């Protein structure tokens, strides 16, 4: 194996799990005037799987997930959720779903327990409020008004409201956007526990680390289409390089200003699989750092170029997105 992932976070997936998939859609299209927000999107989420839609803001993730949740009608395409279609018996279907929307602001002057109790009352077989409080780690805030919660606590309450109906399938639209690292980890562990109890999850995110940590499979979405799909490991392997070396470069006298020439020469270095540039920052894909780094340093010395701020990291889904689109997830 060329890079390490925490195996505990990626239990083996069972794509052939019994029955219909948790969720599937084909040929999904949604237009807003001239803008095509979703442009022919297919996906399948298996039972017991955590599936991530990864993409920048505006890629069509939220539109897609809201169509799948039955909140928006698509202009074209078919959706099947837990073996049912929207429009037949929506109430029965909603009893089995947990939905987290982006930017829901709960009533500020209800307490955490009151909010969970209210949402629980909508489900025939909801979970006890105390149970959900414990799951999302808000026991000590049960009697606190929502207005007094931190951002992380509000997000956990939002996820709690999605869990209170004891769902089979959980939809999460950017559940950790805007949270500090500790709050994100707390939410991740809530979702990992749900996943471990055989729940299925579809989540959207523009954090590649979130997709990499939580998701069994990931679809990279850009411009309303899926441009790559697979396990995080497969996607990263598709880069052909296990590591990414980044640096700033000041050209020397004899190297000339020709960036393309530099790229070609660096791509041919031993252990290097490719070279590219994002503004002033260069990236090399490398199979073997032991080989690539000394070669890069020799190249710099011989070519008279100056390297600065050299870093390397194991390849991530972010690098996959950059290699596919030429843009960063966070840029767009």
């Amino acid at each position, binding site marked *: 194996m060329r890079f390490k992932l925490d195996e505990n976070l990626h239990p083996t997936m069972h794509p052939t799990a019994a029955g219909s998939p948790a969720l599937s859609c084909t040929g999904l299209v949604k237009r807003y005037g001239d803008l095509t927000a979703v442009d022919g999107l297919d996906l399948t989420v298996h039972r017991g799987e955590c599936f991530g839609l990864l993409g920048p803001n505006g890629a069509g993730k939220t539109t897609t997930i809201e169509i799948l*949740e*039955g*909140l928006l009608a698509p202009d074209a395409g078919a959706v099947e959720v837990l073996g049912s279609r929207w429009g037949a018996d929506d*109430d029965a279907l*909603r*009893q089995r*779903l947990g*939905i987290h*929307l982006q*930017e*829901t*602001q*709960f*009533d500020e*002057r*209800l*307490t955490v*327990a*009151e909010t*969970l*109790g*209210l*949402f*629980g*009352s*909508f*489900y*025939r077989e909801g979970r006890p*409020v*105390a149970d959900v*409080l414990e799951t999302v780690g808000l026991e000590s805030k*049960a*009697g606190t*008004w929502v207005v007094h919660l931190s951002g992380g606590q509000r997000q956990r309450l939002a996820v709690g*409201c999605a869990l209170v*109906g004891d769902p089979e399938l959980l939809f999460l639209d950017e559940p950790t956007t805007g949270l500090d690292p500790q709050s994100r980890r707390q939410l991740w562990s809530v979702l990992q526990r749900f996943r471990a109890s055989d729940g299925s999850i579809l989540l959207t995110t523009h954090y590649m680390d979130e997709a990499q940590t939580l998701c069994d499979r990931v679809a990279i979405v850009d411009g309303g289409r899926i441009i790559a799909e697979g396990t995080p490991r497969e996607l990263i392997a598709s880069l052909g390089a296990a590591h990414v070396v980044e640096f700033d470069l000041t050209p020397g006298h004899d190297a000339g200003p020709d960036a393309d020439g530099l790229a070609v020469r660096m791509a041919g270095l031993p252990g290097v699989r490719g070279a590219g540039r994002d503004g002033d920052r260069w990236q090399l894909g490398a199979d073997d750092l032991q080989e690539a780094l000394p070669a890069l340093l020799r190249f710099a010395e011989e070519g008279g170029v100056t390297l600065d701020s050299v870093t390397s990291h194991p390849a991530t889904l972010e690098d996959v997105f950059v290699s596919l689109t030429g843009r960063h997830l966070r840029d767009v």
Partner: protein
Amino acid sequence: MSDGSFMRHPLAALTLARFKLTIREPEMVFWVFVFPILMALALGIAFQTRGEEPMPVAVRDAPGAAPVLAALTRGGDLEAFPAPEGDELALLRDGRAHLVVVPGSPPTYRYDPVRPESRLTRLLVDRALAGEAPHGAARTARTEEVATPGSRYIDWLVPGLLGMNIMGSGMWGLGFGIVVARSRKLLKRMIATPMRRSHFLASLVMSRLAFLALEMTALLGFAAWVFGVGNEGSFATLVAVALIGALAFGGLGLLTACRARTIEGVSGIMNVVMVPMWVCSGVFFAVTNFPEAAQPFIRVLPLTAMIDALRGVMLNGDGLAGIGAELGILAGWGAVSFVVALRVFRWQ
């Protein structure tokens, strides 16, 4: 943990949540409970002390009226006018006369001793007649106490304030809750659950009706306690009028809020709907002050209908039959606005 008090039925849970949200909003408590009471207090006091204006006195059209009229007018403190016997009670009730003098020897005063301005007028009439009549005659004048319920301004004002309050809290109670939930994307979040939409709307109405009971008790209780404002009609009729009015204005609140996305937006619409009614519908002064041509329009405004109905019950003791037209207007407004609002309601 307080969730034990939450009932499991979604309608009960929604209603209780709405009730708690309302009561936990200090501004709401002020506008719904404190403001109308302050208004009643301020206006009740202001119109009790009339200052230097001459006091209106009616003199019965009977033999011997002319010298009495002349004597009363002389001092400038009193404004005396002749009146036929049949009009006397109406004049007293409307406050157009504080006291009626029946000429005779000794003269008889008809007035409501509960009204301070009537007692003051009696003293002024006594003094004025002392110069005319044989010595001591005025002091031995007979008095005939006339109960004139609803004759003071405060008696007339309180049903107006109650109507205004039912309009305001009915419209805000429904409209505000809906638009807040919509603008916070909470409405969308709720319809993503199996919650029935009808339960959500019904909970707003039910919480509203619970508040109606509290508002009525607070305002009418205060008015009875401080100003002795009573209710001539039956209490059940009064409650029925308030209930129909609350539902009608609830419907209008729903209608104003059925599309609005922001609080600012709905506030604007609410004011456009309510301010003209505050002015025209006879909360503070009689609708008859407006030109004849405007009367048909003013009469069909829901607030006019409700205040007329409330005054009919509280001042005249009307039963349901006596205020049927007003209740019909209210029910019509309520029914039409509910139906239209539900058709065009924006859930997300």
